């Protein structure tokens, strides 16, 4: 631990979320630089994390040293880059202070719900989550990171997903830490033959949020879908690094990211579709749309398309702009104020993704958070 802390505390800046293929340095998009970041030690998190555990052929336990699933552990050990940075991943992998181990053996109807809620006495979340789905099993896991007071929290999380042949893992994450917190979230998946990893990522909080999702589509017809919505206001920063790595044949992936920027918000979206040699007949698509709500926002998008295979189809589109004036005018003509109309339009981009959440209470919670954050539109 000393080594890791020294590495972090002695570096003037810490490089995170490196672009898989780097480009011009003056653009400052190759890495997200975490400046002035120091930490003394990993503080304990003394709260439980399970809000709901479904019945059925599924094991759900708090993460502990004696928990092993060697096949998956060996796989991730040899995988190289699996998150926001080697150092932060190593830190949580070794010195986690909470986390969940979920082992699914069947199709499980109800979701596993996990909540990490930092507060004054528990300001640090180092959650190591490990989801293993046996062949043809299915599970939905919801993880909620929400501040309940004004404590500046640090979240450094690692979620490993291991979906064996024919399995489906749905992972839904909500990040609404307060505006003085730091969020570092690494998610990595192994996806077997005909297996699926589907993510819904809702990013609305933290002063600095650095998020990484990596899907390794290893076998024939592996599939991964990532639906991401974000709202960045104030002087907050969001850096996303999404990588779909097509290794097996006939693999499928899709990234849809929609977001809105307000105030002095800064957002960087890095989305990579990577067709490795051998990924014949694979298909991938990526779409990113950012609504710019203030003239002081900064929006960067780097949609990479890497290809070493000829018989594949890849498509990416990124766009950005103001709210459509005609749409705005139309809604206002129906008796809404400009503010309300803008809110409605932004929400209309998010609703299809929010609707993918199977829990009505959580959908409402997200609507409320959005409403709050959109107050200064």
């Amino acid at each position: 631990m000393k080594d890791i802390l020294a590495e972090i505390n002695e570096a003037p800046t810490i490089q995170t979320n490196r672009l898989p293929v780097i480009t011009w340095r003056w653009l400052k998009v190759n890495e997200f630089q975490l400046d002035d970041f120091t930490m003394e030690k990993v503080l304990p998190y003394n709260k439980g994390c399970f809000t709901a555990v479904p019945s059925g052929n599924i094991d759900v336990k708090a993460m502990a040293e004696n928990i092993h699933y060697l096949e998956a552990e060996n796989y991730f050990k040899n995988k190289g880059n699996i998150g926001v940075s080697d150092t932060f991943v190593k830190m949580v992998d070794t010195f986690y202070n909470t986390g969940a181990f979920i082992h699914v053996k069947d199709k499980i109807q109800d979701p596993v719900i996990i909540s990490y809620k930092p507060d004054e006495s528990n300001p640090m979340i180092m959650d190591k989550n490990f989801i293993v789905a046996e062949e043809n099993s299915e599970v939905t896991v919801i993880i909620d990171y929400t501040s309940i007071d004004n404590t500046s929290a640090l979240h450094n999380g690692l979620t490993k997903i291991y979906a064996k042949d024919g399995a489906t893992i749905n992972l839904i994450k909500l990040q609404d830490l307060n505006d003085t917190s730091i969020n570092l979230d690494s998610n990595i998946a192994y996806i077997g033959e005909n297996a699926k990893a589907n993510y819904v990522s809702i990013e609305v909080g933290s002063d600095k949020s650095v998020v990484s999702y990596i899907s390794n589509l290893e076998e024939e017809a592996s599939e991964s879908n990532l639906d991401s919505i974000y709202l960045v206001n104030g002087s907050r920063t969001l850096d996303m690094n999404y990588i779909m790595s097509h290794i097996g044949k006939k693999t499928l992936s899709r990234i849809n990211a929609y977001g809105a920027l307000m105030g002095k918000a800064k957002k960087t979206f890095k989305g990579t579709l990577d067709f490795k040699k051998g990924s014949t007949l694979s298909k991938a698509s990526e779409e990113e749309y950012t609504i710019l709500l203030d003239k002081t926002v900064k929006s960067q998008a780097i949609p990479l398309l890497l290809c070493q295979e000829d018989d594949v189809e890849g498509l990416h589109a990124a766009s950005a702009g103001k709210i459509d004036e005609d749409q705005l005018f139309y809604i206002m003509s129906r008796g809404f104020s400009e503010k309300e109309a803008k809110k409605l339009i932004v929400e209309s981009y998010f609703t299809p993704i929010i609707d993918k959440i199977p829990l009505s209470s959580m959908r409402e919670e997200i609507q409320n958070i959005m409403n709050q954050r959109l107050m200064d539109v």
Partner: protein
Amino acid sequence: MEKKQKTYIEDIDRGIYDIKNEVRYSYKAEKGLTPEIIKEMSKEKNEPQWMTEFRLHSLEVYHSLDLPPWGPDISEVDMENIITYIRPDTNLNTSWKDVPEDIKETFDRLGIPKAEREALAGVGAQYDSEVVYHSIKQELVDQGVIYTDMETAIHEYEAIVKEYFMKAVPPKDHKFAALHGAVWSGGSFVYVPQGIRVEIPLQSYFRLNAPGAGQFEHTLIVVEKGASLHFIEGCSAPMHSVINLHAGCVELFVKEDATLRYSTIENWSRNMYNLNTKRAIVDKNATIEWVSGSFGSKVSMLYPMSILKGEGARAEFTGITFAAQGQTLDTGTKVIHAAPYTSSNINSKSISKGGGVAVYRGVVKIAENAHHSKSTVTCESLMLDNASKSDTIPVIDIRNDEVDLGHEAKIGRISEEAIFYLMSRGISEEEAKAMIVRGFVEPITKELPLEYAVELNNLINLELEGTIG
């Protein structure tokens, strides 16, 4: 699985480009890079003091900069082994009759004198480090248009050269810009006075004959208010077993309401490192149009940049890259929207085959003050086999909310449906595929002057067998 027959698309026929001449020179610098070599070269060229100093300063900058950590591997470029200056054994001529026979034959084979007679208003021809031929139609001279080699310009139009030289691309921009500042030689200077519309294109052709040498020509074009110009640049070299280096620099100044189209057909040999820097500063309501074809070289790093400095300035970029075996062509464009109501339109296509690597690398940056700016980017890549590689690395950076930006990129194979549709119309399978590949590059060929479009179509020879992709 049944093995699919792949369509084999022939390499560009390099025949005429690969004929090399015996190296004859009147002055050749030592290999390597020292202040002495540079002072000697500047003296040999009889340059004013400020230029000698500029070169020495650039050399210092060169030593202070590192190689880029991104992009293709260029560690093989070792300046200790590159001859930076070779003066061919002839002076600048204004008639092809005075150009030495072997050099003239080279340009004949490349079709330059013929194009000059038929389609151009002026021609410059550079052979190794110096321009050997320059001419311009009298009617343009009468209108005040200047088209000459840089060596002449630095003496006859010193004030203009001094005002603009390496102002768009300062030596500290990157290592090879600094190298260029230190050892540049040759290139063309064009000045189009206010309001003059040059209807027929001017063309400069750069030929590097000597093995192990570098070519560092400087092209400086100023198009004054309301004027217009189409400039064509061609480059080639014969194949050698040692590496050659091209680190040219193109600086374009497009003034208010002016239009400049800058077309390039680059066909360097496969031992060439093409590390060229091109940049345009575009004033109010002016337009820069880049048409760029990259076919040759071992490694290319080429990203023409448009700085839209004046309100309403426009940039268009149309590029095609064809990377075959042994080639890494890392190309694209950079656009900086630095004023309100500016617009850019980028259209890039690439084909890779036989282990070739084609990379689109680009950036569109919209600055804080560039409200009401618009940008559209479209990148399409075609992979002809799985030994090749194709990457798209675009960066979009927006700093205000009044923008309209769209970016789209596609990679894929030739659609079976399209082939089937054409076949249902009575077209043979082979012909259908040929049509589709030609259709893929058509948006580019239609931007080229006719004779180049024909050449490009000839370059992409199709030998069809089985299916594509």
